[in-house]
């Protein structure tokens, strides 16, 4: 994908990362945590222009859970409150066992999409989410069995090599869909030249999604739109609307990026168009 795709005016898929698993209501009261809250946030995000919602599961006190039953409750609420939005489960889980990491794939029906982390990521000062190749392969295998489209999370340039490695080891359905992630720590340093470089390094025919953490969310999704990619916004990745002002909802962040896409001449994809683009 490239600037030519932008000029061609192809629709842009907006993913809303509604809740995440790292921070919770202690960071912002607007972050949805319970299944009902996540369902409502999904409906509002869809109405604002999101065609995909990326979800993690939490207990009522905001703490992480990987239990299939909790993902099921969340999906049921999303389907009850939203219209046609595509559900994407996270399979991330720093510190969790490989067995736990598979549990989000086992709802009925299966989610249409799930994230697949391409390699290690440091957390805090003494913790690493390892995401070994063995785990990547076994998660991918279960996704294939259950008809789930993997969203490859590429935290840095090394993970681009890991993506090519996965393509050598496994057959991935076309198009390959990778999220390029920019921010602090283990992530790709958030500089425009690194963004261009990452796009150039993508496998032939891949579609990309753009994710900037914190204050990098807005400029990087704008670049994503301009370079023919897709975009992810939401309170998982950024809790501020602008400096010093908390975003009041996921929908508020989606509305802004939909407005930018519109101003820049790119149609915002409906869930149905997103299914066509991603071959779901």
């Amino acid at each position, binding site marked *: 994908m490239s600037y030519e795709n932008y000029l061609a005016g192809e629709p842009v898929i907006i993913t809303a990362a509604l809740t995440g698993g790292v921070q919770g209501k202690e960071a912002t009261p607007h972050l949805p945590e319970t299944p009902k809250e996540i369902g409502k946030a999904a409906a509002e995000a869809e109405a604002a222009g999101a065609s995909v919602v990326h979800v993690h599961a939490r207990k009522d006190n905001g703490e992480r859970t990987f239990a299939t039953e909790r993902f099921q409750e969340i999906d049921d609420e999303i389907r009850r409150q939203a219209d046609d939005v595509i559900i994407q489960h996270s399979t991330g889980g720093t510190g969790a066992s490989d067995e736990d990491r598979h549990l989000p794939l086992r709802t009925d029906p299966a989610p249409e999409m799930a994230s697949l982390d391409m390699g290690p*990521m440091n*957390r805090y000062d*003494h913790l690493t989410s390892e995401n070994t190749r063995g785990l990547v392969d076994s998660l991918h295998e279960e996704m294939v069995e259950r008809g789930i489209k993997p969203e490859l999370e590429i935290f840095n340039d090394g993970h681009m090599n890991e993506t090519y490695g996965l393509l050598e080891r496994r057959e991935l359905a076309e198009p390959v869909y990778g999220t390029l992630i920019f921010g602090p720590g283990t992530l790709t340093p958030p500089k425009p030249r690194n963004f261009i470089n990452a796009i150039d390094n993508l496998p032939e025919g891949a579609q990309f999604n753009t994710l900037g953490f914190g204050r990098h969310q807005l400029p990087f999704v704008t670049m994503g739109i301009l370079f023919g990619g897709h975009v992810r916004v939401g309170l998982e990745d950024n809790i501020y609307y602008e400096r010093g002002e908390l975003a009041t909802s996921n929908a508020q962040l989606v509305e802004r990026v939909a407005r930018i896409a519109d101003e820049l001449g790119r149609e915002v994809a409906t869930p149905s168009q997103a299914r066509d683009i991603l071959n779901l």
Partner: protein
Amino acid sequence: MTCPFLAYRSEANDRQFDEPRAYCEAAEQFVQPMRADICNDRYDLSHDEHCEIYLEHADEVPAGTETGDETENAGQSAGDDA
């Protein structure tokens, strides 16, 4: 064994929650849900190995609550600022 600094509170620092949440009595603040798994020694995580706040405050653990661990300086956390 959970961290001796862990408490569950519905209210602190002018914040109120419907459900009691993990609160760190060493840092005197509510902790992030991901860190709460470290506080609770859940999954493959343990407070005396993975929490820089615990390692910084290990010598303040009341006697008999937990065997002392070596103290290590904590730096800035990475990759969790979003």
